[in-house]
């Protein structure tokens, strides 16, 4: 579905432009991506291929890694019978995707940044390889990376980022451009916010609720993924054992006269049945990947909540600080000591200070108070701005999540239906063969 300039609906272009309506319904290729943003109006984005490379790493050791081909193409309608223009391409490896994401995380702390597909295969069932170089894993990761880019490209805020644009268009020199933004400094502060243990006096109930929801979602999805892996394992066993029927029936048919043909052909159907599980479980991996995306999303949500907490905390500290200074000023002005201070004590012990000293002190305090008020004002507006932009994104995210997961559940049902239909087919055929025994 190419971007159709005639229709009102802007539909994000999903990688494979040959996608049929049933395929898109089944979400085989990719998860739902939002309506077109400014960036997506201009370009199609694909992660088309994956390739193995070897090279020397930072400690001068040989390593094998995978690179992914990013194709971009101006989004325009292709005339009937014409061929689309050749895409611009560049290669990126996973670590560069990670760098991009880190940059986005610190630059837009109020945005729920889309997650990357997993670095290592987790929640595997035993037949699936946990090897990063396994072709199936690489393929699923390719799809995941494309999905990631489309998520960013369709985000109302992130899609406008220059570094992201360069990531898609500038193979060389991108790394330097990222570093030039100086985002590294913010990395440390972000880490601090994530790990620090501070207490906010008046937590924002909405953010508290959101954090709790995010934790619950994280727990339940990981549980679901674990159950799925075990179920897949078991189901694989059930199907594959039926292959033994195939073998035995075939051998048995050799010694039978009347029963021979029926047994033999039934045996073939048992083999078909046993083989069918591979495709079934391969499809189910897509469902698992959709769940995994939201499992990883919970980290991003948590991260926004924590950032808010930090800002809130800093605000409270600033307010506290200001109040304290005002208190001091009042005491100094009126001569009462309500708040203990070392200076106060020493002046009591060693004699009062001179009026000049007091004046200068007052002036300094006044100055500090002014600065404090300014800082508080700024912090306050920072906080309000954060809350405003964050909640905008959170609402957007909630809607996206509900849509995507609903679609995922539907596609799971469709998969189950397909599996049942295959089962009916095979066993009906087998029954016919048994009838001929």
């Amino acid at each position, binding site marked *: 579905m190419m971007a159709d300039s005639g229709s*009102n*609906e802007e539909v994000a272009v999903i990688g494979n432009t040959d996608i049929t309506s049933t395929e898109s319904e089944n979400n085989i290729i990719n998860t739902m991506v939002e309506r077109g943003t400014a960036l997506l109006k201009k370009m199609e984005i694909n992660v088309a291929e994956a390739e193995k490379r070897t090279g020397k790493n930072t400690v001068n050791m040989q390593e094998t890694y995978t690179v992914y081909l990013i194709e971009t193409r101006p989004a325009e309608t292709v005339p009937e019978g014409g061929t689309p223009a050749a895409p611009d391409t560049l290669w990126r490896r996973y670590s560069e995707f990670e760098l991009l994401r880190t940059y986005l995380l610190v630059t837009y702390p109020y945005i729920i940044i889309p997650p990357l597909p997993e670095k290592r295969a987790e929640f595997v069932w035993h037949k699936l390889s946990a090897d990063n170089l396994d072709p199936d894993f690489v393929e699923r990761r390719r799809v995941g990376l494309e999905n990631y880019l489309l998520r960013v490209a369709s985000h109302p805020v992130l899609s406008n980022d220059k570094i992201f644009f360069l990531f898609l268009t500038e193979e060389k020199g991108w790394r330097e451009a990222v570093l030039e933004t100086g985002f590294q400094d913010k990395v440390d502060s972000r880490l601090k916010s994530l790990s620090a243990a501070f207490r906010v006096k008046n937590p924002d109930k909405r953010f508290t609720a959101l954090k709790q*929801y995010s934790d*619950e*979602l994280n727990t*339940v*999805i990981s*549980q*679901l993924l674990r*159950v799925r892996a*075990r*179920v897949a*394992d*078991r*189901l694989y*066993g*059930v199907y594959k*054992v*039926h292959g*033994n*029927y195939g073998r*035995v*029936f075939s*051998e*048995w048919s050799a*010694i039978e006269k*009347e*029963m021979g043909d*029926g047994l033999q052909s*039934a045996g073939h159907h048992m083999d078909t049945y046993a083989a069918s599980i591979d495709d079934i479980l391969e499809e189910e991996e897509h469902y698992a990947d959709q769940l995994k995306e939201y499992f990883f999303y919970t980290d991003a949500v948590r991260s926004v909540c924590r950032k808010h907490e930090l800002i809130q905390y800093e605000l409270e500290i600033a307010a506290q600080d200001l109040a304290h200074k005002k208190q001091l000023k009042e005491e100094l002005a009126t001569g009462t000591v309500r708040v203990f201070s070392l200076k106060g004590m020493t002046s009591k012990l060693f004699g009062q200070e001179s009026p000049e000293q007091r004046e200068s002190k007052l002036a300094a305090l006044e100055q500090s108070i002014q600065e404090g008020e300014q800082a508080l004002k700024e912090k306050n507006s920072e906080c309000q701005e954060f809350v405003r932009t964050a909640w905008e994104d959170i609402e957007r995210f909630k809607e996206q*999540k*509900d849509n995507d*997961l*609903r679609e995922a*559940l*539907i596609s*799971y*049902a*469709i998969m*189950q*239906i397909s599996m*049942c*239909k295959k*089962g*009916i087919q095979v*066993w*009906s055929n*087998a*029954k016919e063969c*048994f*009838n001929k*025994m």
Partner: protein
Amino acid sequence: MSGQTVPADFTEHMLDLDEDEDLEVFSKNTSLADESPMPNSPSSMVNQYRLEEDEEEQQQDASAKDIFITVDNPESHVTAIETFILYRVVTKTTRSEFDSSEYEVRRRYQDFLWLRGRLEENHPTLIVPPLPEKFVMKGMVERFNDDFIETRRKALHRFLNKISEHPILSFSQHFKVFLTAQELSSHKKQGPGFLSRMGETVKAMANSVRGVRTRPEEFTQMQEYTEDFSNKICSVDKVTQRIIKEQREYLDELRQYTPTYTQWAESEEDLAEPLKGVASCVERCSKETEEHIHHLSEVLLPALHEYVLCAETVKAVMRRRDNIQADYEAKNEALASRKVDQEALQEEVDGLADRVEQANNALKGDWSRWQDNMRTDLKSAFICTAEKNVEYYEKCLAVWESFLLSQRPEPEEQRDMEDAA
């Protein structure tokens, strides 16, 4: 020892009964028809005692059945020395050799073993239906576990019914005693019993060392087939057991889905409804899986297992036939070498020669009957299983389709949504 193999009790009953054209239904055994007419009851009496039966009852030609047996009501019986299960055996019959038309007795597993032993003794080359095994090795199933008892009960029921359908075994005196006598212990003491069987075994071993020189080709083929069949049916039995095991483990894991989806639904608002929908779907599919497993273990597996045991029986029958032939050959050779007692020996040898012929004929007749039964039984078991599988998938399909329907808006609704966008 002589006269044992010619069933004396059998011929006793032959005097009363007429030959009937329904004979063909019971056996294609023309050799037996020459010797002694097959007992049968007039078809008019047939439908009087029709019992509703469970799935194991063979599809018999209705016009021929004149005896109906059920095994049910297992009860634990406790004495000072031991505890065992007594099964109720109810017989309803129109056969004239039975004094009454209905009998009810209590039997324990040992009694069944006794009956089978006597039948095998009296008819060494007939294929006597198998009994369920004494012990269940794997899984350490407790002897008085309900499932075990039920499985055994069904097998015992099948055992007696198979005998009642057998053209020769059905008329065994021991069979009648088993079905009718209130006290079986007095009958058990009669007859050769243990010691003579020991003697048989020793002789059998001696003969097998000797070997069978001139085994007819058809019996060699039977023997080879039996070996192969035994291997195959054992494999099928094992595969089926494995499938059941895997299915059980699958079901255990599958059951984890529902609480997880339900828990998730509790955190969600809009998403709660489809999540609960999926949870409910998985639960219903779990129930279907459970039923499917039940079918496999209660219907398919016992059917296969019966033939695993049958194969062993047939192998033993082959060996006994060989022994009978070896016996004759040994005596025959002795006759050739010895000069004294020629007349007496000759008579003995002739008797043995007859015995060989009878044994061979009995086996040949029973063999084709057994083959037919095997084919019918296993075919129906496999068909039934295939049907159950189709049913299982159809039910699950319906479950998921109804979920899908609940999630998709109506076509009209969808158009409205698109217009509004």
